[in-house]
């Protein structure tokens, strides 16, 4: 059966050249990067080189790059470490559409006595600077707003948000997990103090992420341990993954314009065809300020998981905004924050495109999507009711 992957925002395959660069560091140069001997030096050299490469690509200092186990750890560290470091200030501001890594960290901080404000967004999923301006106070220690949303792809006005935070004496963190490698991320221009990203979103390995921390900013430690990462983050360095993320970032930034153009073209075609061929569809998110790889639709009168599974049976992989798939009964907090009614949030699906997605792939998906929506609507009591079917209840 044909298989088409349209879930690149969940994860991407490791690029062959990235894998090749990683390979020597599993068995050949396996040394612990913190060991004194030659084996250790080989690892340490690889880690230093990778760190410098990433710093150069992002135009920051190598000492501002910290390797973590992924985006989630980087987010946890920035938030919790930042909150603890800037006590006695006890106010944290974030948005209502953050990834669970931030939302759950905030919930923990609330239990520890911090006050957390969750900024609203508009119906396209944009957190406007005035929302922050209205909420911020001088006892705010940290503001964290994601660069781009993982579900609906909305890209936030980070530079403006960051300026407001700084004007009120707060530090600014952004979760750039979805943005890095997809759209330009200019740390110096944005002015952010901390920024998280993850390797596996741009054809790098899983289990590796980076927290950029501006010189002079000192979040408290999250992982206590040995002397790794200049004693700021304990745990034996994952050398192959560190090498992998540096090569993946190099490739992603090198090919950014080309990939972005291709992916956006494919996505725009898909969106146009869906809106043309399927009635009662809502395109979730902002049409303009949006990641090129993201399309998210609410298909009215049907439930997301059954659509996801119908497509899966046709070999198509996408992601459901409906929480039914994750085992919870709550629909996506992001879609609800945009004001989408609960029943429509249940019927939402995310398609995310990659650099190797072709128009042919998209046509196959469209064909199956149109059929699947028709099939599920034909068995939906909500659709029957809407179209004037007998509703003798």
């Amino acid at each position: 059966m044909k298989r088409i992957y349209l879930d690149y925002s969940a994860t991407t395959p490791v690029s062959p050249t990235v894998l090749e660069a990683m390979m020597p560091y599993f068995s050949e140069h396996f040394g612990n990067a913190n060991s004194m001997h030659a084996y250790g030096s080989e690892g340490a050299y690889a880690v230093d080189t990778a760190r410098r490469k990433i710093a150069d690509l992002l135009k920051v200092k190598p000492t501002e790059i910290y390797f973590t186990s992924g985006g989630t750890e980087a987010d946890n560290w920035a938030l919790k470490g930042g909150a603890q470091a800037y006590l006695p200030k006890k106010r944290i501001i974030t948005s209502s559409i953050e990834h669970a890594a931030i939302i759950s960290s905030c919930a923990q901080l609330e239990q520890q006595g911090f006050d957390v404000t969750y900024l609203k967004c508009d119906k396209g999923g944009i957190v406007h600077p005035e929302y922050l301006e209205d909420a911020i106070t001088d006892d705010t220690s940290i503001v964290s707003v994601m660069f781009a949303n993982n579900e609906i792809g909305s890209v936030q006005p980070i530079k403006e948000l960051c300026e407001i935070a700084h004007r009120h004496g707060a530090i600014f963190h952004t979760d750039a997990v979805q943005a890095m490698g997809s759209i330009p991320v200019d740390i110096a221009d944005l002015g952010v103090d901390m920024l998280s990203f993850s390797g596996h979103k741009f054809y790098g390995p899983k289990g590796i992420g980076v927290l950029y921390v501006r010189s002079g900013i000192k979040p408290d430690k999250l992982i206590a341990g040995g002397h790794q990462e200049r004693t700021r983050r304990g745990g034996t360095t994952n050398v192959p993954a560190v090498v992998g993320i540096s090569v993946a970032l190099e490739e992603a930034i090198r090919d950014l314009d080309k990939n972005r153009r291709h992916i956006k073209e494919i996505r725009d075609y898909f969106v146009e065809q869906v809106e043309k061929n399927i009635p009662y569809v809502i395109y979730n998110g902002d049409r303009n300020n949006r990641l090129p790889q993201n399309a998210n639709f609410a298909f009215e009168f049907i439930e997301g998981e059954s659509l996801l599974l119908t497509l899966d049976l046709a070999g198509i992989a996408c992601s459901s905004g409906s929480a039914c798939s994750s085992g919870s009964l709550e629909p996506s907090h992001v879609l609800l924050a945009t004001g989408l009614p609960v029943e429509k949030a249940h019927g939402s699906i995310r398609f995310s495109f990659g650099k190797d997605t072709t128009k042919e792939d998209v046509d196959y998906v469209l064909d199956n999507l149109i059929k699947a929506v028709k099939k599920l609507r034909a068995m939906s009591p909500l659709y029957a009711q809407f179209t004037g079917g007998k509703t003798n209840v």
Partner: protein
Amino acid sequence: MYNDRVIKEFSNPQNVGELKDANAVGTVGNATCGDIMKIFMKINENDVIEDVSFQTFGCAAAIATSSVATTMIKGKTVDEALKLTNKQVIDELGGLPAQKLHCSVLAEEAIKEAINNYLTEYKNKK
């Protein structure tokens, strides 16, 4: 996450649609919770369910249980249908993931709702 039987039932459900000459109809669930099941039955003078169909808005488990439950009560008497439990439906499907067990309750409730409507409304009018 689902077993093959559930997938088969979901991708090729039986008894889908509206039954034009139904004399027992029941709807349970709501869109906010993410699942609604509407069941249609044609019950004859001997209280036998001659025909049955459903419309379901919901996840794969909700659709699969709707399909199986309607198949299980077809040709049965009203009393027999009332005895159908969600456990029997789950067993028939060879099990459901833990977080999906609640979906099977929907079918049992919809059947009871339809029969109750039939007993209170339709039969009284006769």
